[in-house]
């Protein structure tokens, strides 16, 4: 046979408007601290599958989801196994939104003190929401305070 003659035929470039490329992933997580790691890994894999940059999916997504899930399970659902935590991820062209909501009474996030203050730095807790706020671009809560939305914008 003679040398292969390569002809490439490409998809036409009629790409749809960016706003169309939305992917929505939702996972219902039991109120159990032992499943946090598995749930975090599952969502991180889906973020990777949706094209979230690997570095963000491997680290930031995992840390902030772990924090939000732990809070939802411990403070929100107060370890009540009859309650559930809902995780929803919206992957758009411009941002990834991570939503975590619990069935608890909610709280007032504005009253959380800064854990880096000298009189708090040696405490064993109180760094969860602070880390979330440092690691993602935007954090929102619903009015009741039982649902957090963490937004990571694409660079």
């Amino acid at each position, binding site marked *: 046979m003679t040398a292969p003659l390569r002809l490439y035929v490409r998809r036409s470039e009629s790409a749809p408007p960016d706003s169309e490329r939305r992917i929505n992933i939702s996972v219902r997580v039991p109120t159990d601290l032992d499943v946090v*790691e598995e749930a975090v890994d599952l969502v991180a894999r889906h973020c990777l599958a949706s094209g979230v940059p690997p570095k963000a999916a491997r680290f930031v997504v*995992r840390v902030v989801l772990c924090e939000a899930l732990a809070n939802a399970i411990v403070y929100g659902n107060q370890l009540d196994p009859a309650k559930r935590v809902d995780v929803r991820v919206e992957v758009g062209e411009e941002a990834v939104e991570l939503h975590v909501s619990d069935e608890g009474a909610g709280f007032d996030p504005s009253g959380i003190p800064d854990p880096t203050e000298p009189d708090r*730095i040696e405490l*064993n*807790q109180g*760094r969860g929401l*602070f*880390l979330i706020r440092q690691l993602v671009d935007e954090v929102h809560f619903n009015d009741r305070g039982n649902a957090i939305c963490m937004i990571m914008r694409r660079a």
Partner: protein
Amino acid sequence: MSFTVRKDDAKGVVVIGVDGQLIVGNRHDLKKKVMDAMEEGERKFVIDFAETGYIDSSGLGVLVSLSKKIRETGGDLRLAGLNDDLRTLFELTKLDTLFTIMGSAEEAAASF
């Protein structure tokens, strides 16, 4: 997640490697491991994060708590093997000012 514990017999340093995550679901296991070693008389500890994926705030909290307990008994805790991502967590929370952070576990163990 699992822990690797090894003892440097010459220097009397206990090196605990965290393989996987140090998070809300397993931080008590690390705490217990260190407390048990303290009961057996150990005073010099290195926690090695070279094989760690991520740490959450409750993992950081357990390190703060262990560090205090170890210092109270006249011992010392040094951290090693942190990659850039993990190091960022300590910097953001200013815990890098509280801990002695070394390069590799070998360096940390030799520094005692």
